[in-house]
């Protein structure tokens, strides 16, 4: 079950070419959108208005620095998972997502009895002690709404290719 807002109709071939040209990063020049326009044979205004539209519609989440957590010394990567009442998950998720050490925060389905957790918060720290302090802060924030919790540390990256549109 995926709550999808499928927008494939709103992305045309020109948008797709712009996405393919920018998904690995913007040209680091004073007028990057002009450089993309030139490379694709489009007008700069067309490229900019399309990118603004993609950002407004949520196809672009954000534009800026995409940090490499490992290079920033953030080596302990833990998935903290929480069982909270469904009727409170929206409000609690927004509060947890606002904490500065939480990089991703989602509601996901439970799989009872094996998996009772419905709120996922990715937490990063320099070591496990730091991650545990951060998880304690989340626990304090959730208070009595937290019925169960767990921390899943990653021990190995088995594969990481990222999401890419075919070129």
């Amino acid at each position, binding site marked *: 079950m*995926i709550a*999808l*807002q499928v*927008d*494939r109709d709103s992305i045309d071939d020109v948008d797709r070419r712009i*996405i393919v040209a*920018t*998904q*690995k*990063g*913007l040209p*680091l020049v*004073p*007028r*990057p*959108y002009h450089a993309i326009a030139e490379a694709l044979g489009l007008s*700069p205004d067309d490229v*900019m208005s399309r990118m603004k539209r*993609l*950002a407004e519609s*949520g*196809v*672009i*989440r*954000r*534009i*800026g*620095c995409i*940090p*490499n*957590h*490992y*290079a*920033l*010394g953030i080596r302990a990567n833990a*998935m903290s998972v929480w069982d909270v009442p469904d009727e409170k998950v929206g409000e609690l*998720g*927004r509060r947890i*997502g*606002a904490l*500065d050490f939480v990089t991703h925060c*989602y*509601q*996901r*389905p439970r*799989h009872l009895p*094996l*998996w009772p957790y419905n709120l996922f918060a990715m937490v990063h720290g320099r070591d496990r002690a730091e991650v545990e302090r951060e998880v304690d802060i989340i626990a304090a924030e959730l208070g009595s709404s937290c019925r169960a919790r767990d921390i*899943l*540390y*990653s*021990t190995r*990256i*088995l*594969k*990481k*290719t*990222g*999401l890419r*549109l075919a070129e």
Partner: protein
Amino acid sequence: MSDRAASLDETDRRIINALQGGFPVSEHPFAEAAAPLGISEDELIRRVDHLVSAGVLSRFGPLYNAERLGGAVTLAAISVPEAEFERVAALVNARPEVAHNYAREHRLNMWFVVAADRPERIAEVLALIEAETGFPVLDMPKMQEFFIGLRIAA
């Protein structure tokens, strides 16, 4: 403490913290983004270029939302006995739709992200992985998303 994180000066840190979103779409976006940071357009471009080549940033630019591109993404988990772990990892990783796969310390010890160009394909891929590996796959698609970001000590 990482070597590369340690080598960042205060301006680099301010750039990373201030510019994880909101980079303008305009004729001179670097000049606009540089002004509130109190640096010049040239300096911002030079520093971002350095942060990317040093690997501190994976890249600088738009972060696209795969679901909104008409595709679909899910997070899936399998509980794999240690003796079978490498065999199952090889089968899971061999699927082109598997973008990330992490080993985690838990009874559910393999967690991977599946991305496909159409939503129906997700269920097909998970069924194929169940058939190939012989283990049940738990599908945990995102139902709601709350802020994404990373802050480093300034």
